[in-house]
């Protein structure tokens, strides 16, 4: 069994036009894929159970990190203000700082909107930044 550790499952984003790069100081990534269903049960359907068709799909991702360098935070803010989809992907990584993509079978890429962010600055705690992306269009 060849397992992928969480630190090797990384999220890449084209923040502020800098090209696809691993989110620095990433601590957690969570990707959600959703199939939106519609009941297609008709009078011709046998039994009591409904029959569901997936009529559309959507996806989103949340990335938590300790990135808190001024330039990094400004880049996030500019990307948010631009309100335009940016390129993103996730992949299995290895190498220096776990940033070298391995093109694993579960690699996916697409475009997404940075539609939510939180920058947290607490006394005596590591500053952190959470990003939420809403996929726009299909994954490849």
């Amino acid at each position, binding site marked *: 069994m060849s397992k992928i550790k969480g630190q090797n499952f990384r999220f890449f984003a084209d923040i502020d036009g800098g090209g696809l790069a691993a989110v620095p100081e990433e601590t957690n990534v969570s990707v959600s894929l959703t199939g939106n269903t519609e009941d297609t049960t008709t009078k011709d359907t046998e039994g009591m159970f409904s029959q569901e068709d997936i009529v*559309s799909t959507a996806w989103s991702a949340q990335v938590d990190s300790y990135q808190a360098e001024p*330039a990094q935070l400004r880049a996030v803010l500019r990307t948010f203000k631009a309100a335009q989809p940016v390129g993103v992907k996730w992949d299995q990584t290895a190498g220096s700082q776990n940033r070298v993509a391995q093109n694993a079978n579960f690699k996916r890429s697409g475009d997404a*909107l940075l539609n939510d*962010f939180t920058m*947290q600055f607490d*006394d005596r705690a590591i500053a952190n930044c959470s990003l939420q992306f809403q996929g726009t269009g299909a994954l490849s």
Partner: protein
Amino acid sequence: MRRGQYYRLFLAAAANPSKVIAAAKAMSLHGSAQTEESSTKDTTGDALEYEVVGQTYDISGSALVLTPTDTLNTGGNSVNDMEGYVQNTLLYWKICLCDGTNNRNVVETIASGTCKCTSLQLQGQNKQNAQYNYTLAGYGTIDVPSEPASSGTD
């Protein structure tokens, strides 16, 4: 990695705020975009497409309640100042990386803008330092300064 105490919120009722929140404990900047599904019959495939139709942001934080004569109030916003802000007053803010005495010397500005103070809560729990929580609702856009020529991204 940087610790949160080096990022300070400056706030004032006039442009170019120079007063931090005195005895600040925590602070966060949160932005949210309102998206609308924009898929049409012309869209290829089943994947939904979205576009941004609005953006909002807010700043929230907490600080200790100091006595009016505490020296940290000098050059900083006290709880009395914050109380005065809870009205329809346009406030100017900026978040900066700071260093120096009491972490008040500006090194770099992250962002700035205008806001309204929409919430102030004072708490006095037995055997605890009295503190207050505030919420600032963003008014207009966030201004982000351009990068210094030598700045990197990671």
